[in-house]
């Protein structure tokens, strides 16, 4: 890969990626000095030789399934995911994910370069980020209601500090009015001790409405699609899993912030699931039941906004439940 090309592509500055740019099978020719996040959608339909490239570092399981289907290797998507990160596409071979002959069949479909997101992948990326914001806000609100602004503060901070910069371009592109100002105003009020409760509540509602408004720009069909929502849940629950692990040492909950973060993500996952559970139950009662049971059991691990001294279940059990939901969810197509 040419260095200059890499920089050009990185200007897109996005993480989850499917290349839909005009692919004349030589990515090294797509050097550009301008931000390339807006790769023309029309290129999608430009001709037969146009293959969508899959970023093997960041693609969702559902995108990797295209490789799995092409090569006919069971659970290849999961194998690709678990062998991340890749510095080069060829590492699929050197890391023994697939063999050289198999790689030759898919090498034109895969890349490690940052490429502009499109379609469902782009919507998912956007929705997961906003979902994480919602989770933070949920737990922040609980702590505010408990009269613990000091504990609420980091969770009001996280949407600004960790997420906003990562979703800002998409918000603009989708015509969503900026709400960083509102989030920061809320953070300042809470930092100062949340003394004027009415003012804090009003500012909180403004921020929450802004996040809901940002979510609402996604087409309703998308937001109510079980396949879409379950993938959003996976993104939230994966993050909850890592944060829950980072809260616990020596069988004790030592870091309240990470416990609370994960509580918020699980809470919002529950809300998301409510919106699709009847559809799933109608289509596949077995899958629906599996997910409902696992999700219910998972949620019991966050009994209160202020963490208990000891975890309800060991972290391994929490990871297992999350994995179960993810695996069951893969059946929803």
């Amino acid at each position, binding site marked *: *890969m*040419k*260095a200059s090309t*890499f*920089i050009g592509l*990185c*200007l897109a*500055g996005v*993480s*989850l990626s499917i290349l839909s740019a005009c692919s004349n099978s030589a990515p090294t020719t797509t050097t550009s000095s301008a931000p390339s996040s807006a790769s023309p959608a029309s290129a999608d339909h430009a001709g037969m030789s146009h293959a969508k490239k899959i970023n093997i*570092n*960041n693609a969702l399981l559902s995108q990797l399934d295209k490789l799995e289907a092409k090569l006919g290797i069971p659970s290849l998507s999961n194998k690709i995911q678990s062998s*991340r*990160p*890749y*510095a080069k596409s060829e590492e699929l071979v050197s890391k023994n994910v697939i063999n050289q002959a198999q790689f030759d069949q898919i090498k034109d479909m895969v890349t*490690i370069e*940052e490429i502009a997101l499109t379609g469902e992948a782009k919507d998912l990326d956007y929705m*997961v*980020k906003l979902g*994480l914001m919602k989770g933070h806000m949920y737990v922040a609100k609980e702590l505010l209601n408990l009269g613990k602004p000091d504990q609420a503060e*980091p969770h009001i*901070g*996280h949407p*600004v*500090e*960790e*997420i906003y*910069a*990562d979703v800002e371009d998409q918000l603009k592109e989708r015509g969503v009015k900026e709400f960083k100002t509102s989030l920061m105003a809320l953070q300042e009020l809470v930092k100062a001790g949340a003394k004027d409760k009415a003012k804090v509540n009003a500012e909180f509602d403004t921020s929450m409405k802004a996040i809901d408004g940002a979510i609402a720009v996604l087409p309703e069909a998308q937001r109510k699609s079980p396949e879409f929502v379950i993938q959003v849940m996976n*993104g939230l629950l*994966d*993050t909850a*899993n*890592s*944060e*829950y*692990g*980072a*809260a*616990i*040492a*020596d069988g004790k909950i*030592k*870091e309240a912030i*990470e416990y609370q*973060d*994960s509580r918020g993500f699980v809470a919002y996952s529950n809300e998301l699931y409510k919106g699709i559970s009847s559809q799933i139950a109608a289509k596949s009662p077995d899958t629906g039941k599996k997910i409902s049971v696992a999700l219910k059991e998972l949620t019991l691990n966050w009994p209160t906004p202020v963490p208990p001294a000891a975890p309800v279940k*060991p*972290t*391994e059990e929490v*990871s297992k439940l999350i994995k179960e939901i993810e695996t069951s969810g893969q059946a929803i197509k």
Partner: protein
Amino acid sequence: MSQPIPAFWNRRKIIQAGIGASLGIGGAAIAWSQRQSLISPQAAVKVPSTVPMHHGDRNHGSSISPTDMLRDFDRGTVTQENGRTVREFKLVAQSGELQLDKGNKFITWNLNGRVPAPTLRANEGDRIRIVFQNKGGHAHSLHFHGDHPANMDGIKPVRNGQVFIYEFDAKPFGVHLYHCHVAPVTRHIGKGLYGMFIVDPPTPRPLADELVLIMAGYDVNGDDKNELYAFNGIPHYYMHNPIAIQQDQLIRLYVLNMIELDIAATFHLHANLFTVNQTGRSPTVGSYETDVITMGTAERHILEFKYHETGKFMFHPHQDFMAEAGCMGYFDVIANA
């Protein structure tokens, strides 16, 4: 689950194994021997083996070894692309437990299981490629000091589960650092997401025993004050495991102050003076001599000295509360035969 910090390759063991690579000890060992061959001139430097003053569990059960970290320079996987040297590094952010002392187990946010993160090293002008994977839960990023384009500045968060590849030229030569730049940065650095980045000048510096010392603070109870301090990750470590160095041999210390929550730390060396090469920006020698150098957070220098006297000599910040709370160690000067 917080993963225990994976075993850190014991450099001496691998060297002792000698033909470790051909015996198939594993990928890491092979990478090591390749790295060794790249710094073969350093083979002329005498590195006495360190003898712990007290036997027993001085790592407090943590599997990282500050002794190994001293001279562990990660030069990456080297390839040639379009006629230039590319050094590729893989850094994975995750969380893990680190036993700081008998009374404190700390949940770190670390890179590749290490606090501090690997010391990355390149020659000026090399192409650097960092494959960064975030498995830490929180969003993280890698911000390098030194020159690079805006889109490689590492201030954009990389959320959990994502990979971002940073790529830029190693310049200018000197001692730099890298760290997570997601707010609150104090917490992200305080948890362990920092490391040194050394860029060597076009003409190599004179032969010396080169050592990395990174000062850091630990806020173990979340009160925005540091309760413990350390060189290279573990408090008090070099008090119990003095750093063995050779009498009259040139020592080149790469020192970084990565202490958050305190304004500055004044590195002090006992019974000696060192030359200060500020940010390592002189290709040859330091600009002045002293035995105390005050460094703000993220400030770093090359300090050079030799010991003619043998025996044990302390080093520590002269903010003595920091020293006594763990940021203190010994050099053990071994006599020439």
